């Protein structure tokens, strides 16, 4: 299965009640797959008139307590930011997939990681966060879907899956696991008609003096809880590494090969791979920075995640960047060359 199809089928297995989407490359396989499969399962598929409408359809379904999702690619996800902000304010669970392409503007349709800032900083207006997952294989894309729906329901917020054009298009074998996962809270807040209970209101407007500040503080407390409990990252050959690569998504696959080749050459290289991009594995990176090493962030952008790495390292070690923007994909040789250069510099020092 290609990544986009794996993601779609995994969403169905995860109990997605409704999918709303608007066509955009390179994620069209998701929309096409859902248009066929969701009705077969007796569930809802709507091709919306825009990404604005798609995210608001998600908002509507989520407000009634249903599991709803949408998917898009970078320019479309920009349009969804209004709705994502409202979802945050109204504390509604939702899953949004961004199969990233190059930007700014219409950009191109090549793979990219240039929406990292938008995804991990909330993206729309107001003080809020979304949980962001950065899978790096087709299997992990599929595994992310049930996790995303569960996290969304548990914390009543948007979970974004940040993939890219390569992950969406590449084909790998996948196993889908329907087994139950974490226990989830009921949804007494859902709009279901006020049968045998008082009125429910879902809203993001808090006009009374201090009411919005109270909401913001409550959201912040929730975000701190997520930072404490939900960080996921992989540490690969980091123990004795002198050079630590930080990479996520498809770039981590490339970096892993470069680390192995460097090790073959006798260079002590390793990799930290964030799986949750927010919450970011700052503690894990900070711990690695306790012993002096050189950090090399590799990403398909002009350098976005590198800022989080620098914040985590807090000046204790050098943090360098190898970034390829605009649809450029770093090769294993490129990354290996960077590692070699750093080794020479470290040796000279």
């Amino acid at each position, binding site marked *: 299965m290609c990544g986009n199809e794996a993601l779609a089928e995994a969403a169905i297995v995860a109990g997605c009640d409704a999918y709303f989407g608007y066509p955009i490359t390179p994620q069209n396989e998701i929309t096409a797959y859902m248009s066929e499969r969701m009705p077969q399962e007796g569930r809802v598929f*709507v091709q919306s008139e825009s990404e604005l409408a798609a995210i*608001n359809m998600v908002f*509507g379904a989520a407000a009634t307590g249903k599991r709803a999702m949408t998917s898009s690619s970078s320019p479309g996800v920009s349009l969804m930011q209004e709705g994502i902000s409202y979802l945050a304010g109204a504390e509604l669970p939702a899953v949004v997939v961004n199969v990233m392409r190059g930007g700014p503007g219409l950009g191109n349709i090549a793979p990219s990681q240039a929406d990292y800032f938008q995804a991990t900083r909330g993206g729309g207006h107001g003080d809020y966060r979304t949980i962001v997952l950065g899978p790096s294989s087709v299997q992990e894309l599929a595994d992310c879907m049930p996790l995303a729906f569960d996290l969304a329901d548990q914390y009543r917020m948007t979970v974004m899956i940040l993939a890219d054009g390569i992950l969406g298009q590449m084909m790998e074998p996948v196993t889908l696991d329907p087994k139950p996962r974490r226990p989830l809270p009921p949804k007494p807040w859902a*709009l279901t*008609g006020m049968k045998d209970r008082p009125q429910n209101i879902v809203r993001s407007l808090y006009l009374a003096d201090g009411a919005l500040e109270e909401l913001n503080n409550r959201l912040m407390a929730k975000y701190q809880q997520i930072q404490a409990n939900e960080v996921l990252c992989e540490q690969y050959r980091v123990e004795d590494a002198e050079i630590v690569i930080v990479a996520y998504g498809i770039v981590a696959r490339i970096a892993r090969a470069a680390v192995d080749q460097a090790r073959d050459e006798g260079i002590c290289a390793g990799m930290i791979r964030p799986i949750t991009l927010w919450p970011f594995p700052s503690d894990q990176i900070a711990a690695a920075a306790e012993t002096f090493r050189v950090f090399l962030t590799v990403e398909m952008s002009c350098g976005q995640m590198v800022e989080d790495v620098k914040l985590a390292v807090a000046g204790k070690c050098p943090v360098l960047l190898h970034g390829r923007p605009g649809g450029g994909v770093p090769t294993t040789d490129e990354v290996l060359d960077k590692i070699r250069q750093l080794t020479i510099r470290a040796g000279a020092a």
Partner: protein
Amino acid sequence: MNTVFKRTSVLKDCPTHYCPGCGHGIAHRLVAEVIDELDIQDRTIGIAPVGCAVLAYNYLDVDMVEVAHGRAPAVATGMKRTNPDKIIFSYQGDGDLAAIGTAEIIHAAHRAERITVIFINNAVFGMTGGQMAPTTMLGQVTATTQQGRNPSNGQGYPLQVSEILALLPGTVYVERCALNGVPGIRRTKAAMKHAFQLQMDDAPGLSLVEVLSPCPTYWRMSPAKAMKWIDEQMSRAFPIARLKG
């Protein structure tokens, strides 16, 4: 003693935030009476707009959601498709429905969503301070048309959304009414009731009731004169008519 008139149970007992002479209070009451009479309070979900009626849920005692400006028909789509047994209605003003939300209302109608839309047309943006709306009358003075709306100044013409929507195969019922006096109010209620009834009957499309509604504050008129202005001016650009169904 016989009670001949009382507050409907779907309307909450609370003070209003609307200006004197505003039509929203009447329109809210009509929606509430209709929900009460059709006995659908326990399966109705309402959608409040951005605008003066954003706090509609403070008055209407049904499950309600408040959504982004203009997006109510998309939110309604998400609700109705996943809950076909519920009665879903949006309550939207002219800025909300006829300006920023044009795409959403056209496409909800075009997809024949089985929802009910109450469209309050008061020819002005109320909450933000009386700016020009797409439905502002020619010559009407607003905060952003201080010389009066003039198409030759690039300010366009009153937008007749209901006529456009009536053309689409996806609408089952479109009627324009006005709150300018007892006959108009009674007709508006009958139209609203029909629109909700169609949804209860699972009629295959969208039903919409446009309501010409007074805004004395931003029309800079007394409430009585505002009612007359609907009669003499507004209903010329926006004819009272059953446009479809």
